[in-house]
């Protein structure tokens, strides 16, 4: 997907397919389409952050919470049109991402992941601390209806699926543009070697912060969509497990790949529902059924990283080259992207790690 017209073409084709599916399938499947679109929006941002700029975030679930609560509060108190709410939810999350990103830009590797993990743990507790605003454990109800011009009988879930899919597709097209622009190249340069990038005139800190803001904004949009799809915003929905599910989706799909974000989201939304159904129909208790997907996330994260770091999209690309032979556009990502770790204390360690496997 190298050019804008081609990307737009793909997006239109996907949009037509989504509309067709949403009309053909039942209400539950419509809801799943909406869920997948929400997931894609958030995962696409995260896969850009981790895959291209080499930063890892365990706090994107918290940014989703910011977007969702902004949406709920705006719809509740000001009853703005949804498009305006969506824009403002994105802006608020971008601001939050910028504040955190400024701190995060100075952190590398383990510190950043830890700080974002902390964000994921701390943020939901604000909803408990200020119950009068955020509704505490019960959360806030979100009123979202179909617009009048579609007629009274138009199913709400279908409209939710359409809105979510549209936002997801727009996000994907914009991110694809960003990825192949100067900004995307700067992110890759910073990821591969921040010192070399700085010597080439890339503002390393600005690149890192921008990547963080972009991924936070995507998470905020996804949170806004989640608010209108589920109709309820409560702290229980935005746990660390959500952030880790997003990361799992990005890793399964292939870090840094937008089509991969779609594959990963499909897996992470459809497989747990299926597994839980099968488990309960085989007479397993609900706590077992609901925990099998969690254990599976973990196993998959480990296996993919050890055995197949390029993920599903990497596999598809390899299959494609088997049939067509290596094209001129073949990119060479043999390993998962790496954030450079070059602090003085690490120098001694680095040489040791390289040889560790052979000793």
């Amino acid at each position, binding site marked *: 997907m190298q050019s804008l017209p081609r990307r737009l073409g793909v997006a239109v084709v996907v949009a037509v397919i989504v509309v067709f599916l949403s009309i053909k399938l039942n209400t539950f499947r419509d809801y799943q389409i909406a869920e997948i679109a929400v997931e894609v929006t958030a995962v696409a941002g995260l896969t850009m952050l*981790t895959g291209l700029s080499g930063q*890892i975030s*365990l706090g994107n679930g918290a940014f989703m919470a910011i977007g969702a609560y902004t949406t709920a509060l705006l719809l509740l108190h000001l009853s703005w049109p949804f498009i305006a709410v969506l824009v403002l939810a994105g802006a608020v999350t971008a601001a939050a991402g910028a504040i955190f990103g400024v*701190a995060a830009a100075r*952190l590398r*590797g*383990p*510190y950043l*992941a*830890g*700080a974002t*993990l*902390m964000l994921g*743990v*701390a943020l939901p*507790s*604000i909803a*408990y*601390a200020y119950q009068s605003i955020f509704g505490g454990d019960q959360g806030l109800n979100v009123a979202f209806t179909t617009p009048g011009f579609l007629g009274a009988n138009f199913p709400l879930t279908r409209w939710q699926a359409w809105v979510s899919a549209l936002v997801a597709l727009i996000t994907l097209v914009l991110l694809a543009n960003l990825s192949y622009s100067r900004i995307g190249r700067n992110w890759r340069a910073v990821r591969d070697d921040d010192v070399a990038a700085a010597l080439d005139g890339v503002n390393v800190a600005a690149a890192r912060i921008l990547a963080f803001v972009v991924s936070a904004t995507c998470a905020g949009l996804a949170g806004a969509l989640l608010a209108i799809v589920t109709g309820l915003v409560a702290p229980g929905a935005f746990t660390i*497990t959500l952030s*880790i599910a997003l*990361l*799992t989706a990005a890793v399964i799909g292939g870090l840094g790949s937008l089509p991969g974000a779609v594959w990963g989201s499909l897996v992470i939304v459809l497989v747990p529902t299926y597994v839980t159904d099968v488990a309960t129909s085989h007479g397993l208790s609900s*706590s*077992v059924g609901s*925990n*099998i*997907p*969690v*254990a599976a*996330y*973990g*196993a*998959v*994260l*480990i296996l993919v*990283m*050890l055995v197949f*770091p390029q993920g599903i999209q990497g596999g598809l690309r390899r299959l494609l080259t088997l049939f067509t032979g290596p094209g001129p556009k073949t990119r060479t990502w043999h*390993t*998962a*992207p*790496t*954030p450079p*770790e*070059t*602090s*003085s*204390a*690490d*120098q*001694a*360690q680095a*040489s*040791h*790690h390289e*040889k*560790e*496997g052979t*000793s």
Partner: protein
Amino acid sequence: MVEFLQFTLSGIVFGMIYAAVALSLVLIWRGTRLLNYAQGGMAMFTTYVAIEVIYRTGSYWAGFVVALAAGIVLGAACQLTVIRPTMNKPPLNGVIVTIGLLVLLEGLAGIFFGGQYRSFPAAFSIIGIKAGTTPLGVSRYDVFVVAAVLVTTLVLAVAFKYTTAGLRMRAAAFNATIARLSGIRVARVLTVGWALAGLIGALAGVLVSPSTFLYPNSMDTIFVFGFTAAVIGGLDSPVGAVVGGLLLGIALSYVGGYLGSDLTSVVALGVLVVVLMIRPGGLFSATRVRRV
């Protein structure tokens, strides 16, 4: 004034638990330059093992000892099976593998032990001690918590300083290549480091669970507090980890006591961000230039 004293003392108790978690993170960080996000998950899992043993044998101490042994086994097993293969890969892979390990352990705990909250017994009375007529806000069990972490830390410190195995570990952490040239089997030393970290994590899990209940995510918050403590101390320094744990424990105890317990994790996040912005190497590190 009495209130202030009570908050300080209970802060020290929780601080010792954060210190234990921080210490386990530092042990692994020094050896492998990897932050073990699964540390809290491992501690949660070994605590479940303990509660099952206590339930079946009726003896707290049997569960206590089995949990520590399980911590050693789990730590070594994780390092040998999934961590070692990531050592020659980019650091991001190792980080994601430890996150995967955390989720895997939490999922398995939910499958095997159920997701509901379970209460965990305390070794000693949890009724507050009084000095004369003034309640101190701590119990005999709290004293045991502090003593257990202190003794473990001191034993480790002495072992590191005065035994051959400790010398090997320090050498491997200082410079792996030179250590290997001197005949130290660095890979084995790293496994031992993970086993020790597993032991300390398991201790923290057993000690904290009477006050938090036990459920698959019960160690998440304790882990991030332990991480914050380790960062305050500089990630590289065992002494820093203990001091960081105590500072954080006391600070959060004041916040919880005077402002409300819902805000403790938000304040801890603030502390973490401020420390990382002002002194990224921790409060105790000398200013170091990042060489390229």
